[in-house]
């Protein structure tokens, strides 16, 4: 499961924050899961829990909050801005998998619905993002 690698990155970041800020315990990590990457929240959460198990006491009582974030794309050519969520189902398995592993491959598969350009910006909802790390 590829989610494991990203979960490991989250915990590594929280550990680094604890070291840098002299925290004895991380109490909460708020994470956004951008829908473009289609991270399986259950698998991701499972991976996070498994990884923190091995890193007690720093994460002994950590609360992990996952929040899905809708995909907002903006065309650089014509300026059109659109939510991509519903169109996700139109992607076949191959395309969907490619974007899951490397979300920027969206530029190979997705086009602006207004002008057809592949030159768009991912404004929101790309992938895994840490909103906040709280500790004491």
């Amino acid at each position: 499961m590829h989610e494991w690698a990203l979960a490991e990155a989250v915990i590594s970041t929280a550990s680094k924050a604890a070291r840098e800020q002299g925290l004895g315990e991380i109490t909460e990590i708020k994470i956004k899961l951008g829908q473009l990457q289609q991270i399986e929240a259950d698998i991701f959460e499972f991976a996070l829990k498994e990884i923190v198990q091995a890193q007690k006491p720093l994460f002994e009582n950590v609360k992990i909050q996952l929040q899905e974030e809708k995909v907002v794309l903006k065309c650089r050519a014509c300026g059109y801005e659109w939510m991509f969520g519903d169109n996700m189902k139109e992607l076949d398995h191959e395309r969907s998998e490619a974007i899951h592993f490397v979300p920027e491959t969206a530029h190979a598969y997705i086009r602006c619905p207004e002008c057809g350009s592949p030159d768009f910006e991912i404004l929101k909802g790309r992938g895994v993002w840490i909103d906040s790390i709280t500790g004491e």
Partner: protein
Amino acid sequence: MDPRVNIIDKRLEKIKKIIAVSGGKGGIGKSTVAATSALILSKAGYKTGLLDLDFWGPSAHVILGAGDVYPEEEKGIIPPDIHGIKFMSVVYYAGDRPLPLRKAGFTQAAIEILAVTQWGPLDFLIIDMPPGMADATLDVIRMIKKVTFCVIAIPSKVVLETVNKTLKMLKELGTPVIGIIENMSVEKFSVKEKVKTFDMPFLGEIEFDPKLEETIGDAAGLLKTDFAKSMSKIIENTDAFRSKRTG
């Protein structure tokens, strides 16, 4: 905050040497040198990886004749074994479609691949760099702490102008450069003479090999070319291409 950048060191920690094959211009043989070097090192018994970072024009898979083997998913991405090389390329995800990425997109995709690829223990990771000295070069220097650069030049005043600038920039950034390889050398114009003023080691020259093109996609054939023989000689004579072999 982006968590991925904090895991890249861990993903690369079991790699002894990382060599980015670079040069200012396109079409000077970076990918062929990178892929052939990886094949030679692997054949010499070194555990070797090859990362194609040329997202705009990936070609290492064509040179190697990578076929239909794909990465596996196991706590990240496990690069497939191509002729003994662990090989990773965006082509596994974009296929033969163009990938029109701007700077920010390149950086994001590079971070993603570096953060999720599980290389495991390697003696060498060779990186096939895209042309130019801006985004990709700066990203690689920023994200891969132990990277060293091998710069390719060809006997062309136009190319050497850019090579000189690339070397100046790498020097200014304090990035180690193992040296310059002259590719497609011809009798009438010596890169070796020109680069004397660049204050960088000259690793050797590879003569223009008209038979090289016939072996693109055929790794065994490629290794028998004069091109590969010259590259082998350079590798044998360069300390940066030596390492204690990982068992």
